[in-house]
């Protein structure tokens, strides 16, 4: 396509920064699609919701099927290619397979004419990573993690590598109309078609950054509304499709620093996006134009690895306290629960965590007001053990120990905590244990691609 000045452009639409967490706004979605964008893209997930989604192949969103149905039916009706990155939240093989299966089922249900569906995987066998470490390879940690060890890699339940643009470009070259990506950089599913079409990589990656969370780039704050990014050889323009939103210099510049340590740099497989000399200006259609991004290619490719290790099965209990004397002696009550549990469960490994809402439940040691004495607190007792039965027993006991807390000079003698409902089963506990980079020579090597026919 070309814009009014006759320059070639490519337009990419997105309506969700996290597939399936809530439905995309119907009106802005329809308004955006009516302008016939060149691609429709969606971010299927990220590492943000925590390690359990990768470790346990879980999906967070309850509206994944609804959004996939909207995206597939409307994009196929107009012949617009659809690209989904980091499928199934974590981009695990299961997440990719499940998303492909859902799309095929939707295509059959809606009698969508035959199209080509492509997908790629991102999992790396833990034993392959461990073997490379055993041969002496160094894998430095990101975000303060120490170098990866053979033992730690081996403890991961699952590891994914974070893909760049290359597997998307390969699948587009193979003729895919719909692409389901494994774990990939959030900026890559947008950048890939732009780079493939010959637009400057710096602008392509920057556009990926600006639209990855859809309407969060615009103001006022609204989630799940349609945004279209337009790339030319000189600039990117970000346009909102909800009539109440604008993309302003402040909202765009503000979004460029969202979810990153610094406002100026973003790493992706293959290089560094440098936004430190960008210029923003407001243009027509409530849009903002951005220029000036640079892309500095890496001399050696290093792929990011993400891995999750299982800690155990998890239960949660809730104890609420209103007695001011107990609240003044809260640490003694917690110590009582902790030490009684240590005695009772001395023969098994477990973890107990006490979240004291009303005092410092969110921030813990970082809470500036934790010295204040509230009039009421709610303690969530989080416990993990190797089996479900053990975890249940542990948390039930640790919670009951607030009811039975032994606090000197307490006037209450009928129970020192209000406990309601049963101890609850939660998701299994995982930790991020791999957050490292590994050297690769070929950006496609870890990401096998597949293509097949779907539809009727």
């Amino acid at each position, binding site marked *: 396509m070309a814009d009014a000045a006759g320059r070639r452009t490519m337009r990419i639409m997105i309506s969700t920064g996290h597939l399936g967490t809530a439905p995309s706004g119907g009106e802005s979605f329809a308004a955006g699609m009516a302008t016939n964008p060149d691609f429709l893209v969606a971010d299927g997930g990220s590492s943000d919701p925590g*390690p359990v989604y990768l470790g346990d192949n879980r999906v967070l969103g309850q509206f994944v099927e609804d959004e996939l149905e909207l995206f597939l039916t409307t994009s196929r009706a107009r012949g617009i290619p659809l690209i989904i990155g980091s499928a199934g939240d974590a981009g695990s093989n299961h997440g990719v397979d499940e998303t492909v299966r859902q799309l095929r089922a939707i295509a059959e249900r809606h009698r969508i004419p035959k199209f080509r569906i492509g997908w790629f995987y991102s999992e790396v066998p833990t034993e392959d990573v461990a073997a490379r470490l055993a041969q002496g390879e160094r894998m430095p940690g990101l975000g303060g993690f120490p170098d990866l060890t053979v033992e730690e890699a081996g403890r991961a339940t699952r590891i994914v590598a974070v893909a760049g643009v290359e597997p998307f470009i390969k699948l587009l070259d193979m003729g895919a109309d719909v692409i389901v990506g494994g774990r990939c950089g959030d900026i890559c599913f947008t950048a890939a078609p732009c780079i493939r079409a010959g637009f400057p990589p710096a602008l392509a990656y920057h556009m990926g950054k600006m639209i990855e969370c859809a309407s969060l780039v615009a103001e006022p704050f609204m989630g799940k509304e349609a945004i279209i990014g337009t790339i030319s050889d000189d600039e990117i323009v970000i346009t909102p499709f909800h009539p109440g939103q604008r993309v302003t210099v402040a909202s765009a510049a503000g979004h460029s620093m*969202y979810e990153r*340590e*610094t406002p100026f740099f973003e790493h992706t497989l293959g290089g560094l996006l440098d936004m430190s000399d960008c210029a923003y200006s407001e243009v027509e259609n409530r849009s903002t134009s951005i220029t000036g991004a640079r892309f500095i290619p890496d001399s050696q490719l290093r792929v990011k690895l993400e891995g999750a290790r299982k800690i155990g099965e998890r239960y949660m209990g809730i104890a609420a306290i209103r007695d001011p004397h107990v609240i003044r002696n809260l640490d003694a009550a917690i110590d009582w629960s902790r030490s009684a549990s240590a005695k009772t469960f001395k023969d098994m490994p477990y973890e107990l965590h006490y979240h004291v809402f009303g005092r410092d439940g969110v921030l813990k040691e970082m809470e500036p007001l934790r010295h204040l004495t509230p009039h009421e607190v709610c303690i969530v007792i989080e416990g993990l053990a190797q089996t479900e039965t053990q975890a249940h027993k542990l948390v039930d006991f640790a919670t009951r120990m607030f009811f039975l807390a032994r606090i000197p000079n307490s006037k209450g003698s009928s129970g020192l905590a209000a406990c309601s409902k049963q101890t609850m089963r939660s998701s299994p506990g995982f930790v991020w244990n791999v957050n490292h980079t590994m050297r690769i020579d070929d950006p496609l090597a870890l990401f096998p691609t597949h293509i097949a026919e779907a539809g009727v």
Partner: protein
Amino acid sequence: MPKLHELAKTIRSKNAGVNQVTFDVIFPTREAYQRVVEGRALTRETMAALYSIAPERISDFVEFELANAIKFTIFRERPSGSPGDWDTLGCQFYGPLVDLDVP
């Protein structure tokens, strides 16, 4: 003495990777931004003191004039979503900034 929320347009925190949380304080005008920058209410030192963390736990601290924003990033106590972490997204870490006094 005004509170930070009376001067800022946006006060937020969010994960930046799995082991860091980044804080963005964005002002509606250059004047409001300058006032807070010059008043030194938001600095590495004041934030380390407010959150009772060692200054080394603040990995980045940037005054970003183009966006009228102050941005800083801290290392978490433990990676996001680990047992014992309640704020998996880091989206409520900004709480104590809202009522911060700005000299």
